[in-house]
């Protein structure tokens, strides 16, 4: 075609122009310092929006509170020099692509410390995109376990207790539940994704080990809001305990529609990720509901351990943390621990030394959740809580 020719040439010219513009636009970025303390970039890849947003908001707050605490007024001292965390928080929209783009951007900015993503579907690809283990990465995503032992995971820390394993969250939860309810017929209905699959396996395994029979196990698509077909099938198998969740987005309509369908007799159990707000308006008809408090309940006004966190939270955000506030602790303590580890190691840019020091940290200022990191699994070890709701009353119990 004759007309194709000028377009080709002029198109090339435009390509050239845009490339030049690109090169020109990119060259300007630098690091600064403020108030005599040098900034250290803390990249946070957080689920501020998207399907993980409800949790992501608490994660963001936990991070902000920890950074405020660590920085104080003057910054913190490492080797006699003052430093401040400079938080660079990027929303990953709970989307893998955005999470990857954020991590690539952090890598481009040469950030040495990266938090998140916390949702497994976003974390795994984003971690892959980082390419090497030259940075300290902390995430609550338990799917991160697959990187431990590989070079990518050299400086990786998992801030949540493992879900699986005999000392994991699920095992402890099942033991506590079975000692309370002695369920014989168990149903598991979780979303069709990474975490859903993991929880389905773990709950099936530990309920079976505890002598119960798993009579129903199915996965639903993530955009499900109408659970009536699943509830119909569940009624058909007549379970005495139903595990669902793992987010409020699903748990709440599920409970509401179960109540609507007159399916209220079983014990409802929320997989890690849910909390008492899932009950919504149907609290009166659901007899028993239990959920995993992944860390420690910060809405529990009677617990002295969480009081400092509650005070700081109220001061910054103007209200008390709610039932989902415990997510903030996924990052809060680990950030403070890492700050301590840097002081112990006497370096702010050697990931290896900081990691080694991190594994030895057992005490740090302003601690809320008593934890330490397992040197082999690089995973936080602590005692999680389980929430119980019965007859309008909430109790928090330390898992067995």
């Amino acid at each position: 075609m004759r007309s194709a020719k000028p377009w080709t040439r002029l198109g090339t010219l435009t390509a050239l122009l845009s490339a030049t513009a690109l090169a020109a636009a990119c060259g300007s970025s630098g690091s600064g310092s403020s108030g005599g303390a040098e900034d250290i970039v803390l990249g946070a890849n957080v689920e501020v929006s998207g399907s993980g947003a409800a949790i992501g908001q608490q994660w963001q707050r936990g991070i902000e509170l920890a950074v405020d605490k660590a920085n104080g007024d003057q910054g913190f001292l490492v080797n006699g020099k003052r430093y401040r965390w400079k938080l660079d928080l990027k929303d990953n929209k709970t989307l893998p692509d955005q999470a990857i783009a954020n991590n690539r951007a952090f890598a481009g900015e040469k950030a040495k410390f990266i938090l998140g993503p916390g949702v497994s579907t976003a974390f795994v690809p984003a971690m892959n995109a980082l390419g090497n283990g030259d940075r300290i990465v902390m995430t609550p995503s338990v799917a991160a376990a697959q990187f431990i032992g590989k070079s990518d995971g050299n400086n990786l820390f998992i801030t949540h207790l493992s879900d699986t394993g005999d000392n994991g969250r699920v095992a402890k939860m099942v033991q506590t539940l079975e000692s309370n309810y002695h369920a014989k017929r168990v149903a598991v209905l979780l979303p069709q994704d990474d975490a859903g699959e993991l929880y389905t396996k773990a709950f099936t395994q530990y309920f079976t080990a505890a002598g119960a029979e798993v009579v129903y196990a199915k996965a639903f698509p993530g955009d499900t809001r109408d659970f009536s077909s699943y509830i119909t099938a569940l009624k058909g198998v007549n379970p005495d305990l139903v595990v669902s969740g793992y987010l409020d987005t699903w748990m709440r309509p599920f409970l509401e529609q179960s109540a609507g369908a007159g399916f209220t007799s079983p014990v409802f159990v929320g997989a890690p990720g849910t909390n008492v707000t899932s009950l919504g308006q149907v609290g009166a008809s659901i007899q028993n509901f239990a959920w995993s408090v992944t860390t420690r309940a910060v809405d529990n006004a009677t617990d002295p351990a969480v009081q400092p966190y509650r005070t700081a939270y109220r001061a910054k955000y103007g209200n008390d943390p709610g039932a989902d506030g415990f997510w903030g602790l996924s990052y809060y303590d680990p950030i403070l621990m890492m700050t301590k580890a840097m002081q112990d190691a006497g370096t702010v840019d050697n990931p290896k030394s900081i990691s080694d020091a991190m594994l030895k940290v057992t005490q740090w200022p302003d601690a809320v959740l008593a934890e330490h990191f397992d040197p082999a699994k690089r995973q936080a070890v602590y005692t999680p809580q389980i929430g119980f709701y019965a007859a309008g009353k909430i109790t928090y119990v330390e898992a067995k």
Partner: protein
Amino acid sequence: MTTGLRRLPPWLGILALCLVVLLVPDESTQNTLTVGLIWALWAASLNITWGYGGQFSMAQVALGGVSAYVFVILATRSGWPVFLAIVAGIVSAAVVSVVIGYMCLRLSGFRFAIMTLAFALAGVGLASSMEITGRTTGISAPGPWPTLRIGPLTWDLNGTDGGFTLLLLVVFLLLTGGMWLVLRTRQGRALLAVREDQLLAESVGVAARRYRVLAFVLGAVAAGVAGVCQAQYYQFIYPSLFSFSTLVTVIVVLVLGGRGLLFGPLVGGLLYALLTNTLHIGGQFEQMIFGAAIILLTVFARHGLTYYLSAAVRLVLPRPPAEPVRAEPGPLAPRGGGLTDAALLEISGLTKAFGGVRAVDDVSFTVGSAAVVGVIGPNGAGKTSLFNLVSGFVRPDAGEVRWEGRAITGLPAFERSRRGLVRTFQRPRTFPALTVRENLVIAAEGRPAHPGADPVEQIVATFGLAELADRPASALSYGDAKRLGVALAVATGARMVLLDEPAAGLNTGDVELLRRDLLELRKAGCSVLLIEHHMELVLDVCDEIVVLDAGRVIAQGTPAEVSAHPDVIDAYLGSAR
């Protein structure tokens, strides 16, 4: 000076881009370039199927997903060598696209888009629930690619020194170069013809369905390449990566850059990456701004940025006027067959009913060589329906069409056109975005090679289109477009043209030109079957006239016989005069 600048080889621009890729050490710029190039690859794939093939495929990203999954699974689980796995991935995208392409062929426009989207969503659903694809979690890519060594040169294909970015650029240029070559071939022109107007393309002998599948498959190959590059870049793939939101971004990128332009995807991709990755234009309102941009571009500037940029560049560096090709108006040369007395076209008992109404009812007549036969009748008499049956656009319920003594009732329209039976359309149809000359080149493509003058130039001269030859057909006046329609039919080297109301809407001068052309055609040995309401013209040029009313032939004969026929005067002429 201007000419000197114009002569800048296109390779210079490309070389410059390569240098930028190689010399910019900054990781974040490198990343922006990489992201931009990956978007450009995706957009290039959609550009082939949609921009050049005219089919809005919403399966493009999913087809790339097929390729990515096959590549990753073969390379990691089956232990295939990486290169073979890549080829297998791309081939499987092409194979899947052939299957989908044939299943979607019967649909066009938005239905085609929806059907392809349904396939895409079903594919994503499938990948989300299969063990081998890692369900919703996804699977890891096979890791770094080997380093290429050519003599002392090494090329680290994954390199942080821009090796991967350079690879993407080279792949994009290969794809684009390939497309550029395809577009210069007869097949490439046919592709554009089908995009511009499928029916007209068929009427001038282009096997439109085949080219639609071709466009779909070529696009799928490009999508396969994009999918593999995406997998390699992320080192991880998962179903939602190939889902609707990625598709939307690809559409944004292509619309931004300009569809149907070779470098549109590159400009769109780099711009998109620059805006989102580096400048963070819009921050949290990013997607909103792109949404608004896509609407504004569609409403006000649907050619995309590349088009306007190049138009601006062309203003600064104007193209020297093309050397005009002169050809004398001369005798038209239809394809062989010789002048025989045998009937060229025989129609017998042709019948077609639409929902109980018999549009064409038991029509029979014959047309000989070098004859001009008029078909007249009141509106709704079934004239155009008759043409649709004869030219093969609609299948008859009963009856037979014979051409040069052989039955062609079952042949598709493009086959009939290739045998020399070519129609025009009542509402003038052209390939609007192409120039008049390009229109004619496509039409003349099926013509047997003929020694002597270039048939296209000759038709340009004969139909008085020389002044208009380099203008896009969309810029023609109604009368000129109708003329071009006739010229296209003639350009195929037809032995018989079916003209559907060629005089409608023409002024007196144009009708006179048309009359001259018709007589010229007959002189050259080309038969004409003419639907026309312009009775003076019909009575003047026709050797024979067939009168239709309510789908039936009510009279047939020489102009004198027909105009004396009482039924005709009653049904038609009486009221017309």
